[in-house]
């Protein structure tokens, strides 16, 4: 159990900067998820922490100890790899016991810890099997078990679920969450899947092009994204964006996209008043666009005329792919909605939940 700190960490490969001035302090017992598109440097950051990559600048600390020049074996961490990385020539038991044997743990102790971990993960029946005789899900459990038995200070996960099928992934997700609660240890988890990040993390670090975009709780990231990238990355389906201009019309402040304009409610207009006349990007999440016939009570809504392009019935909701002039966007509406493909319709934008970004800097205007 320990905190982990990235202090101005750089990782460069020749001219390419994979990790650019990364600063994160991860509290003890925290479940931090590093998320970002592939190639964004999140795995590199994790590997720097594991000691599998040397950092080009800055400081990595585990607890109070600077580990820049400490070999992976001496960092007291355990890592779960995307490919499971089980030792193919060893049985499941020996795979899990490998690290303990190297640390000269007494035989009885090894046996106790391995069977305990096997119990937790439901792999007692496979202990004598070789990895190739196991299914993907079972292998993943063994990889988890191998990490657990070590009782390390920090657990590292490098996209551990991306080789599993969708159903198993959901199941393992909740098991890893449970494991975190049970073990009360620092977890650092890398994924490109924002759903995994949202469901498991206590805090999420969104990384793009090697740069930390935002570090916050899942709810805050969702509700108050710092910039256009975070807004588009977190949430599925993604937030809709409309290019437009902030315009003053008498008392009213509105966003004019050219095809339609929406009025910013007076309660919120204060923040944006100074930016009138600026080119902005207006963002609104699909669930904040309603079928005009099913607008929830007590919200400030703005009507927009659209053409329905595609509908996807999900059962509990409907995804509408809409067009308004040159803008394409998605709405997630009440399943009772009667809108059909090709129809001209009116939808309501929930003006209590929208985001405005500076079109130049792509930073949120607050």
């Amino acid at each position, binding site marked *: 159990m320990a905190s982990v700190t990235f202090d101005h960490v750089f990782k460069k490969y020749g001219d390419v900067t994979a990790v650019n001035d990364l600063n994160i302090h991860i509290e003890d017992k925290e479940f931090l998820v590093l998320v970002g598109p592939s190639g964004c440097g999140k795995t590199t950051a994790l590997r720097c922490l594991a000691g599998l990559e040397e950092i080009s600048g800055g400081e990595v600390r585990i607890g109070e100890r600077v580990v820049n020049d400490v*070999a992976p074996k001496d960092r007291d961490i355990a890592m779960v*790899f995307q490919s499971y990385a089980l*030792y193919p020539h060893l049985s499941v038991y020996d795979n899990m016991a490998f*690290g303990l044997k190297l640390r000269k743990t007494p035989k009885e102790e090894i046996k106790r810890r391995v069977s305990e971990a096997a119990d937790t993960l439901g792999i007692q029946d496979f202990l004598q099997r070789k990895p190739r005789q196991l299914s993907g899900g079972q292998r993943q459990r063994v990889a988890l078990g191998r990490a657990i038995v070590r009782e390390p200070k920090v657990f590292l996960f490098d996209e551990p679920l991306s080789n599993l099928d969708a159903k198993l992934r959901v199941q393992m997700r909740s098991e890893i969450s449970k494991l975190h609660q049970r073990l009360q240890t620092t977890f650092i988890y890398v994924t490109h899947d924002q759903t995994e990040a949202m469901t498991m993390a206590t805090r999420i670090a969104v990384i793009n092009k090697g740069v930390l975009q935002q570090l916050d709780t899942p709810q805050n990231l969702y509700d108050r994204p710092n910039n256009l990238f975070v807004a588009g990355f977190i949430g599925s389906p993604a937030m809709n964006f409309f290019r437009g201009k902030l315009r003053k019309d008498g008392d009213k402040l509105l966003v004019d996209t050219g095809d339609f304009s929406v009025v910013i409610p007076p309660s919120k207009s204060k923040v944006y008043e100074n930016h009138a006349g600026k080119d902005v990007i207006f963002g609104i999440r699909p669930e904040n666009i309603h079928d005009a016939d099913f607008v929830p009570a007590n919200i400030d809504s703005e009507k927009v005329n659209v053409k329905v392009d595609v509908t996807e019935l999900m059962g509990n909701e409907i995804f509408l792919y809409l067009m308004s002039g040159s803008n394409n966007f998605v709405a997630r509406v009440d399943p009772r909605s009667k809108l059909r493909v090709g129809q001209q319709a009116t939808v309501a934008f929930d003006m209590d939940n929208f985001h405005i970004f500076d079109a130049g800097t792509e930073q949120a205007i607050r």
Partner: protein
Amino acid sequence: MAVPQNTPETAAHIKRIKKSSAAPTPQIMKQGALTPWLYLLPALLVMSFFIVYPMINTIGLSFQNRDGTASAATTCVEGQSCWGIFENYHYAITAEFNTSSLQAFWKSFWSSSYGNTIKWIVVMVFGTVAFGLGFATLADRVKYEALAKAIIFMPMAISFVGAGVIWKFVYDYGTQQSQIGLLNAIITTFGGKPVAWLSTIPINTFMIVLVGIWIWSGFCMTILAAALKSVPDEILEAARVDGATEWTVFWKIMVPIILPTITVVVTTMVINVLKLFDLVYVMTGGNFQTDVIANRMYTEMYKNFNVGRGTAVAVVLVLTIIPFIYLNIKRFMEQEAAR
């Protein structure tokens, strides 16, 4: 039928369909049973003529006298033990041994072609595999990997006779005044005494083995390097995070994972060494107690012109090699089955 173009294929296809509807066995299946044999036939013929027939003939000759005109039993010497028709084998197996006492037998065994072949197998197989594995591991970590490997593999491109000649120069023992041998030149430069590397027993055999190692290490390296490359990096990284030193990673992870390949290389090398002839022939001609089984076969056959004895040694050699070939094939089949 809407066939857009009546190409030869479609025509043949239609014909086949028509035929198959009439005959109980479709034509295509009959063809499947016969055609492969047809294609195999040339290879089978060539192999029978050049491998199977000579082998049978060799076995036949090994039971006959020195020019294949009478049974081997006629070569028995009066008053000495005789194995009858197996007399050539009697010679091939026991002639080099002094059976007067256990000690004498022990001594004569280790200077015989059999003893030397065992020395060759142990030292050369161990040497080539160890160097091969070492080079493969190290080459994997240097910047100019391809270049390093090419240099180590290079001796494989030299013929064994050529290599033998080169090393004969290196080992050359000149006169007291001038040493043209590289090794002795180095030794005398540092004030040492020159050594007759190829005629001093027992080091001479090992000096020739060294040449063998020099040649074959590159071969072992290439195969083992390919196996090492197939070990996923993540497994090695997992071991490092798990607490393993580089040494432990090598012995506890890498070597066990590539063990099947190591086994194949070892058996292949054993077969190679058993058949080894050229180096000994070129460098010492089997003199100074450096003879090996394959060179002895040649000596009996083409120096002593004793066809019976020569073929008997050949058969003994083949019988020694067969178990290793069997092992190799078995391994290979297991690997294929595991796929």
